[in-house]
């Protein structure tokens, strides 16, 4: 590692870490963005439920409520600016019992307390008019038109790309193992020492362990596994809103939601684990999801399953985000759950304020380099549908992944980009290639060859 002392080192290049790096990159600061994995967004960020949350159901007055509400607007505008797929679907919180039905007015009142005023309670007849394929027994619903779906992966790559183009050093495959505090902090890593005046811990599942390195113990992260089933694109016409359960003490429960990629997703489960690496799906979890799916949208289960994911949420014993300034110019950004995607840009602003309050001088402000991301949304024009793009470069007319209709041009673009993929999974998150129904029956070998050649 170089002898350079960075102004800020950010540990963790998930959606939160990359958003912070991007926010700070507007200023005359030297920044290191460090991650133990080989790619950005390769930890807890990669298995998000992909909803742009209004924050209507947060705990009123909490930091999470405030940052989700603010982040919603920031990310929505950012998505438009750089070309990230968003679909304005709206959510239905469907009541399946009298008790849940009686809870809807309370949820509506809570939404207002969170600053969200557009939700309405609708009748069972209205529910079925909107969602004719819903299972029997829906008694009514709270309609939340502002809950949208978003591509959960492209924001991370976009944030990291902008930060890198603005001068941030993105240091991957590098795990932080210790620190020596002094005038500035020296992080000991698997890749050598990295010196920085300020350190931000955005290490997700490992944020408590990084706190431990700094001698702090505010919370313990428990990996809460969420298993998700993704159904074939041919099922997309079955459901047109995000179908949410009425929350109970058991957490938010299982949702059925379209994705911007054109699939339907069923999940997540919620199971606390001792092992922070156990991101496998389980027999019991999948059985549970099938039972839930059978009730919510029975026809969905006749469709083919395209993918099964298990994500690990970084839950703590606290209900709110755990964002704290500590001595030694050290800030922890922990306890960020599935709302972290929506809140990411607001978290970044908040962290910047904490840094300034802690004495960091931001220096001159510069404009961030403009980035334009490939829009992977099914509701938008993809290169294979774009005559002009194909006329400009024939590789955009060469479909390499047939299920997702990803072209050779898009794959080559991703491999040539500022933050290139290093694995098939990373390539898939950037292009959709290989993530479709055949899971590589046709394109696996060709994608692997292109990636390995790189």
């Amino acid at each position: 590692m170089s002898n350079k002392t960075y102004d800020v080192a950010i540990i963790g290049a998930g959606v939160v870490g990359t958003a912070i790096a991007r926010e700070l990159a507007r200023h005359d600061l030297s920044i290191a963005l460090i991650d133990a994995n080989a790619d950005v967004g390769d930890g807890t960020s990669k298995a998000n439920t992909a909803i742009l949350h209004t924050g209507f159901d947060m705990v009123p007055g909490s930091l999470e409520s405030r940052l989700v509400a603010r982040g919603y607007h920031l990310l929505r505008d950012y998505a438009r600016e750089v070309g990230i797929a968003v679909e304005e679907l709206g959510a239905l919180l469907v009541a399946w019992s009298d008790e849940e039905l009686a809870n809807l007015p309370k949820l509506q009142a809570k939404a207002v307390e969170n600053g969200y005023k557009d939700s309405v309670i609708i009748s069972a007849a209205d529910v079925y008019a909107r969602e004719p394929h819903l299972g029997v027994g829906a008694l009514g619903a709270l309609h939340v038109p502002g809950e949208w779906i978003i591509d959960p992966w492209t924001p991370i790559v976009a944030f990291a790309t902008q930060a890198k183009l603005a001068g941030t050093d993105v240091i991957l495959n590098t795990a932080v193992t210790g620190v020596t505090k002094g005038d500035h902090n020296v992080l000991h890593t698997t890749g050598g020492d990295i010196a920085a005046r300020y350190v931000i811990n955005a290490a997700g599942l490992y944020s408590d362990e990084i706190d431990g390195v700094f001698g702090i113990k505010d919370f313990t992260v428990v990996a809460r596994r969420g298993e998700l089933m993704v159904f074939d694109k041919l099922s997309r016409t079955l459901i047109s809103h995000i179908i949410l359960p009425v929350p109970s003490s058991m957490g938010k429960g299982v949702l059925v939601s379209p994705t911007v990629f054109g699939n339907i997703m069923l999940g997540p489960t919620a199971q606390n684990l001792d092992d922070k690496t156990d991101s496998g799906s389980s027999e019991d979890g999948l059985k549970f999801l099938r039972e839930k799916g059978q009730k919510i949208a029975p026809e969905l289960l006749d469709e083919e399953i395209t993918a099964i994911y298990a994500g690990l949420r970084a839950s703590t014993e606290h209900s709110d985000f755990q964002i704290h300034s500590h001595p030694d110019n050290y800030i922890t950004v922990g306890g960020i759950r599935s709302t972290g995607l929506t809140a990411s840009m607001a978290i970044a602003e908040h962290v910047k304020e904490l840094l300034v309050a802690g004495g960091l001088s931001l220096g001159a402000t510069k404009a961030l380099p403009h980035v334009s991301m490939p829009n992977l949304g099914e509701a938008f024009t993809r290169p294979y549908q774009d005559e002009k793009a194909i006329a400009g470069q024939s590789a955009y007319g060469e479909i390499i992944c047939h299920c997702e209709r990803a072209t050779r041009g898009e794959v080559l673009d991703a491999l040539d980009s500022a933050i290139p993929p290093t694995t098939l999974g990373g390539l898939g998150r950037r292009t959709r290639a290989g993530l479709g129904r055949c899971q590589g029956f046709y394109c696996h070998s060709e994608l692997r060859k292109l990636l390995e050649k790189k």
Partner: protein
Amino acid sequence: MKRTDVDVLVIGGGPAGLAAAIELKKRGVKSVRVIERERFAGGVPRHSFHPGYGLRDFKQFLSGPRYAEKYVDAAITAGVQISTLSTATEWVNDSQIRVTSPAGIETITARAIILATGARERARAARAVPGKRPAGIYTTGSLQQSTYLEDLEIGTRAVVVGAEHVSFSAVMTLKHAGVKTVAMLTDKNKHESVGLIRFALGIWYRFKLITKTEVVEVLGDKRVTGVRIRRGAVENVIACDTIVFTGNWIPDNELVRRGGFAIDSIYKSPVVNATGQISGTSIYAIGNLVLPIKAADQCAVDAKIVARKVAVNLN
């Protein structure tokens, strides 16, 4: 956008699609166009390097690639127009379809459209096999393409899931790639291939056929380290670095469904009448799109019969 008219458009350039196209030309149909989404026409036999193709149609014992090549040559000789790297993306109406290729986007209008899009093996997710998602998981299709077309490194010890005809083909491909098959698993009571093949390959490659057994978990973080299996109430772990999910075919029925045509609820194939026609349309379905899975030469023989009807209906 480019617009083209043809008498018959065949979607899919495997044995069924090519055999139908050749037959149509023989019957005097003027313009016959085959569109194929891969770089080369020929279909699955192209990457299935073992012999056993061509008995029913060419009366010869051929390897997959040689068999595919014979069909492509015969189609070109017959005057069939073959467009590769060309994907049918959407219906404009029942006689018009939109196609993307490196040359651009084209709308093709046809007096008859024959769907010959084939079938694929259900991947691990479609079978809902729990566990992690390490590298080293294949279908026979992706394994054969990795081995024969791209010459990629595969592994050392494989478990083959499924005991259909194609599963034994996977065993031969693994051998070619230097991978030992340690076990073949099936949840059925016995294998579903030809007895002689099972017997000969079982002895030749020395793997164990384990019946009435399901895979209940994929093990391994970055790379497969094994599979957890269950037979009755008994669970075991087999160590391996490669898993091949074979058979369990599903027709590639996307165009059929996108067109709003009826699908058989069990086989997921388009519902066709005795002449292979989707009733009320001039659209036909042939090959493994209809009730998979049949041998390539059987698909070709059946496709010719449908092609004759198409030719009669056009004249």
